[in-house]
């Protein structure tokens, strides 16, 4: 699997990072704009999401109807998301439509109308999204876990809260976009059937005139929570457990990631085997790795009926603590097989590559080729992962439960 990753930093600071994939007919793009929800003022949670919703309501020559119509006719499968550090605008389409799609997004980023007459409609959309989370207990539990695990403003929910959303006005949105929609700090990842020189020219034409703005500092305040229960009327209790790990850019990242892969991933991984297969305690149980630039966490989830929730928490925590005793070589062999086939299959998707390229650049200042990732995976050993776990056992847990009754945190959990 030979691949080339090309990158260019434009005069205004915008970074383009691309991987031509000639076997595909599609091309995909991911804009990471440094306008994530960490930049929401403390009293205006949800402002970044509100701004994103407004930015899609017309830009440049297009009103909101023309905007949607043009993207539909270009066959762009699009999505937007607001993360801690960035707002992401991404899409995939037939390769020949990429330049036109990028031109539409160049307008969104530089010339959004933010139409005052649509502010109330957009506010209703925000309320709807907020309420929808209330009907998804597993999602709600994990949002609350993230909020308590990371030092503020990291880990804040991008959806904001009802009171803050109600108070956001036209001026706050304009001000947010003015400050945070800027080329310096924006990363554009592109993957698929593209010609690098043509792509670079196209981006230069579309976004070269975008004016830089000052960077915005973040001050984080830590207020760790050990255990919190949230009352919620439901059959099941949602159990969320988080603990610290190294961020993506850390030299030991792949080792730490490998340890989480032993815990969760395939159906032979420890959590699935012990919690679901052996004991039938739940349908869904997993652990996932989440990394910000400087901080990271392992987030574990299990959902189970209220009367079996205590046992589920105990067994899950037991597995996390047992990890410190090390991992077996056969577990690492399976982990490697799974990851290596994922790497190969990533080449079949322009979307997944374009977002990986942009994310890598943010974390590392360059994008790893799949070959480089493959070498890092090859280098993993059970001894290496076990040694890491002796030094860095899962500990300092933050636990959130959501359901009809509070649980007891198992003994031995610091």
């Amino acid at each position, binding site marked *: 699997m030979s691949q080339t990753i090309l990158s260019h930093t434009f005069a205004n600071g915008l970074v383009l990072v691309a991987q031509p994939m000639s076997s595909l*007919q599609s091309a995909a793009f991911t804009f990471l704009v440094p306008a994530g929800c960490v930049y929401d003022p403390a009293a205006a949670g949800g402002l970044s999401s509100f701004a994103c919703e407004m930015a899609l309501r017309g830009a440049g020559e297009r009103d909101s109807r023309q905007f949607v119509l043009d993207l*539909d006719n270009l066959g762009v499968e699009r999505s937007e998301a607001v993360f801690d550090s960035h707002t992401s605008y991404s899409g995939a389409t037939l390769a020949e439509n990429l330049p036109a799609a990028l031109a539409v997004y160049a307008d969104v980023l530089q010339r959004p109308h933010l139409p005052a007459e649509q502010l109330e409609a957009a506010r209703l959309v925000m309320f709807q999204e907020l309420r929808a989370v209330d009907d998804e207990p597993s999602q709600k539990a994990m949002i609350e876990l993230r909020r308590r695990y990371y030092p503020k403003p990291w880990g804040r929910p991008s959806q904001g809260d009802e009171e803050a959303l109600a108070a956001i006005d036209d001026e706050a949105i304009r001000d947010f976009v003015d400050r945070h929609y800027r080329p310096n700090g924006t990363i554009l990842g592109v993957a698929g059937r593209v010609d690098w020189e043509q792509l670079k020219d196209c981006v230069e034409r579309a976004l070269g005139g975008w004016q830089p703005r000052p960077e915005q500092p973040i001050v984080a305040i830590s207020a760790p929570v050990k255990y919190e229960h949230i009352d919620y009327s439901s059959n099941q209790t949602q159990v969320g457990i988080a603990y610290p790990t190294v961020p993506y850019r850390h030299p030991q990242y792949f080792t730490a990631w490998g340890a989480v892969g032993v815990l969760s991933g395939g159906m032979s991984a420890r959590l699935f085997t012990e919690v679901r297969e052996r004991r039938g305690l739940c349908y869904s149980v997993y652990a996932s790795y989440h990394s910000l630039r400087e901080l990271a966490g392992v987030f574990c989830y299990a959902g189970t*009926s209220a009367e079996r929730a205590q046992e589920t928490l105990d067994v899950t925590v037991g597995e996390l603590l047992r990890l410190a005793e090390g991992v077996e070589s056969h577990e690492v062999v399976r982990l490697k097989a799974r990851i290596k086939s994922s790497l190969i299959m990533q080449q079949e998707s322009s979307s997944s590559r374009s977002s990986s390229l942009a994310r890598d650049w943010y974390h590392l200042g360059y994008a790893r080729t799949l070959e480089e990732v493959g070498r890092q995976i090859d280098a993993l050993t059970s001894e290496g992962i076990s040694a890491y776990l002796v030094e860095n056992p899962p500990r300092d847990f933050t636990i959130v439960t959501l359901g009809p009754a509070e649980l007891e945190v198992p003994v031995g959990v610091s």
Partner: protein
Amino acid sequence: MEFRRHTLKNGLELVAECDAEAYSSALGFFVRSGSRDETEEVAGVSHFLEHMAFKGTPSRSADDVNREFDELGAHYNAFTNEEATVFYAAVIPECQDRAVDLLGDILRPSLREEDFDTEKQVILEEIRMYDDQPPFGADEKVKALHYGPHPLGRSVLGTAESITALRVEQMRSYFQSRYSPGNIVVAAAGALDFDALVRALERCCGPWEPFAAERIVTRPKFHDGYEVMRKESATQQYALQLAPAPAAEDEDRFAAKLVATILGDDSGSRLYWELIDPGLAEQAAVSHYEYEGAGAFMTYMSCEPEQAGENLERIRALFTRAEAGGFTAAELEQAKNKIRSRIVLSAERPRGRMFVVGSDWVHRREYRSVDDDLKTVAAIKLDDLHAVLAKYPVTRSTTVTIGPLAELPAGK
């Protein structure tokens, strides 16, 4: 791209789209076994059986099955719906034969009682999980109302009661009525060694004895109806509507997909501008579902409870306008552009093609390439869409709403 097929002596069929350029191989075992094949006493058995397939065979323990799938680095899973249970895996090409051997083996599961009892708890947790996520309950209710006594009205998951009462002997006898080799299609796509694939299948599935596994397909009679289900713990109100639509074997199913796209795609559709853009609903969409002998337009809407009544009226009015006034050429063009792009994008992964090739064969014993589908979509005219709407009016629907409201007047 080359289509190849092979039939084993016992009736099991293999259909494959070979693409030498692909990076991976996708394999799926499509068993014609779903909720429409069940009776009231065993409601949910097809889906439970899907879980049990992973719990071991005469030559593999449950741990072996999970471990071996992971050793292959496979992306694998299974799902059950109204008319099929599908077991699938995507692997790198060198693991093709081992993946066939493993997938084939789990289709002859041991169905041990002890595993059955443990897995029953997992199924019950799955039901409780969905029960905490509205609109669960309404989706099964709307099917039951719409299809009446027809088997398509049956629940896929079953209920906590039916699963609790189910005995392993009942599952074994259900297995003996559905998992006959003649009732199974193996679909494959991507980088395949077809001859090796045939050999692996012959080795693994060749010895399976065929037996009778009939499905009597009748076209359902449709019932319209309206029901409000109360769920006080829900925050949002949800509404689901089913209306008859072209079936899997009907030529006008492509036109039906375009109708659904114009009416209720998640971007740029009529419902989008009516309800999503102004913030009146969180979700509002129309999709086209196709089954053997029946099809459905499914309308889905979620919003804050106070808005639900007005939204249902707006949906009704919007559908009535479409039935009376039809669509514009610009709308058709927009819908075609979207569908064309989706067909191409989803075909880039062998997994995406495997599902299409498999379901085309199961439904119609027909192979259609990506180009065939693109050409068919390109040739559809406005009149075709209008004919679908005339034959299958979207207003002739069954509606179930669920949420905090105790009552909600039907949209007029």
